[in-house]
């Protein structure tokens, strides 16, 4: 065990970094779905927008000013995007899931193509801010400092979201709506404003995650789909609408993805799919979910 950990420690730490990043992306997707029953396929496009903001503002040689500026800009764009998406999907509330998916899919295509028009097809890299761009030795292996910092930031955000959703009045309304939408509507609570806020906040998190993930993933066409899929797997594994589920699912999938890539590079997609299938068969409602994905 000790030997295995020595050999794979970098992979495990990487898994935590990716896991926390995934949590930041997935928690919005999960809550938007849980509250509004909207599968927001444009969630990956929000992340991609953030990534390109990072690439454009920060670029290769990063400064703290540029990095924080990019975070702020991405957060603003994410907020605006979330409000816009919430307005776009509102008229489709009584329509099928397919219609909502199609709409957000269309938004994804448009956003991704606009970004290609603006920044071209080639992958762009994003530097880590000064001080975080080096490496530290971790049990003999050089490990990028930025990823350790990302784990810290991710953990802080996770705590913040957790407190917000589990300990505040608004959080209580969010949880109630996730648990039983119809009941909340029936007792006459007007949760429209909360819906827009959750949509906006989730979108903001996704866009800032794009900047935060920049030094790892860079910015390139197709990244939106990659991230969206990982986030969907996280949400399905963790259970829909559950913050705790999103956190555990994200950390789990982060490990599966990272270790899968380092141990079985050719079979990484199979490992990811395998864990998804396993959860669906053993626990169709996800690890922390109430409602089931598959029916027995």
């Amino acid at each position, binding site marked *: 065990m000790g030997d295995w950990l020595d050999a794979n420690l970098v992979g495990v730490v990487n898994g935590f970094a990716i896991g926390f990043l995934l949590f930041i992306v997935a928690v919005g997707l999960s809550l938007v*779905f849980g509250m509004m*029953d909207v*599968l927001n*396929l444009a969630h990956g496009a929000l992340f991609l927008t953030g990534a390109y903001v990072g690439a454009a503002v920060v670029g290769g040689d990063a400064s703290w000013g540029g990095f924080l500026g990019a975070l702020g800009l991405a957060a603003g764009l994410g907020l605006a995007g979330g409000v816009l998406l919430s307005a*776009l999907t509102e*008229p*489709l509330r009584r*329509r099928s*899931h*397919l*219609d909502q*998916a*199609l*709409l957000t*899919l*269309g*938004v*994804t*295509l*448009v956003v*991704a*193509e*606009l970004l*290609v*028009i603006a920044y071209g097809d080639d992958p762009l890299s994003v530097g880590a801010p000064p001080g975080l761009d080096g490496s530290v030795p971790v049990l003999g292996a050089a490990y990028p400092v930025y990823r350790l910092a990302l784990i810290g930031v991710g953990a802080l955000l996770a705590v913040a979201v957790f407190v917000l959703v589990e300990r505040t009045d608004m959080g209580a309304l969010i949880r109630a709506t996730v648990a039983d939408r119809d009941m909340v509507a029936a007792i006459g609570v007007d949760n429209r404003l909360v819906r827009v806020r959750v949509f906006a906040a989730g979108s903001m998190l996704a866009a800032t995650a794009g900047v935060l993930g920049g030094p790892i993933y860079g910015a390139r066409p*197709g990244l939106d*789909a*990659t991230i*969206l*899929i990982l986030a*969907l*797997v996280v*949400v*399905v594994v963790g259970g829909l609408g559950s913050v705790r589920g999103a956190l555990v699912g994200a950390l789990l999938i982060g490990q599966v993805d990272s270790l899968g890539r380092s141990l079985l*590079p*050719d079979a*990484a*997609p*199979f490992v*990811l*799919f395998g864990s*998804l*299938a396993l959860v*669906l*068969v053993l626990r*169709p409602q996800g690890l922390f979910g109430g409602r089931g*994905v*598959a*029916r027995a």
Partner: protein
Amino acid sequence: MDGQPAGDAEERSAATDAERRSMAREAEPRPRGQETAQRPVGPEAEGRPVGREAQPRSVARTARHGPLLPAGLAAAVVAGLAAAPLFLAPFATTTLTRILVFALLAVSLDLLVGVSGLPSLGHAAYFGAGAYAAGWISIHTTSAVPLPLLAGAATGALAAAATGWVAVRAHGVYFLMLTLALGELLHQLAQTWDSVTGGANGMAAIPSAELGGEPLRLAGYVYWYVLAAALLGFLTLWLVARSPYGAALRGIRDNEPRMRALGYPTRIYKYAAFVLAGAVAGAAGGLLAAQERLVTPADLGFTTAALALLAVVIGGAGSLWGAALGAALVILVRDVIGPDLDGHGTLLLGVVFIAVVYLLPRGAAGLVRRRGR
């Protein structure tokens, strides 16, 4: 497609019952509505409005879901398609070939989305899997028609069979999520499995399809090959959609719990539809390999899957022919108008996507249907 356990007591009595009835019927004048069963099968017979007014429509017909185009029009379209290369420039012929390939993909997706109510966002995966398999066979074994095509269909079916059992367990929006995830995972596999797929660069230099030892080099010959195969694929899907099994799939789309209560093992039915659609998509992929002679991971990516779904939705889900028309529109925008937009046809398609959701909730076939009533 048989979910009935053999040797069931009810079944035996049902069979004798049916025999008795059919014997009795022979003595009677044929009741109205029997032309249903005797209608010629084939695209020429599509939507022939025989006896529509005179009789209760049987499940096997559900002409409402089938096209309303008269048989003559279908025949004319096939004849026109067959003659097209004689009049068109090679570039136009190539575009038309692409349309046929994409139309086959879209129609196979419509069997899932429109007929069975299974909105798959990962259908391009089976298309790409078939394309890679056909390319691989062509490079390493033979490119003699129809072997690469069959390899594509078999691989599409296998990939769908391997992944579909998880997908069909899920309902509604979860099905969307799972198929999206499955498609993207296969996409990543295509990108990482360098030794077979050529990785991100794709599988290049696929030899031309050969017929009788002669390579099909001219665009016109490739087109005819693709046309013949695609028509076969359309015919297959069309027959399935109009069969009792197709009626059962529509029943599942409408009300799955009720179908289960009526004794239909719905998950097996959905699984079979998923595998069949995967096989046809794989065959379409085989045609893609023969036509482009290059397969890249993008062919099984998110965008391809989204565009196939767009084709189905533009055309109006469930009509099959609508999906083919939608596919033509998508390819025209991407390959003909796209270059005028500096290759950003996808942007236009994204806008079309958004517009369709708001303006045309039932697709083009919905418009025709409304007028047809």
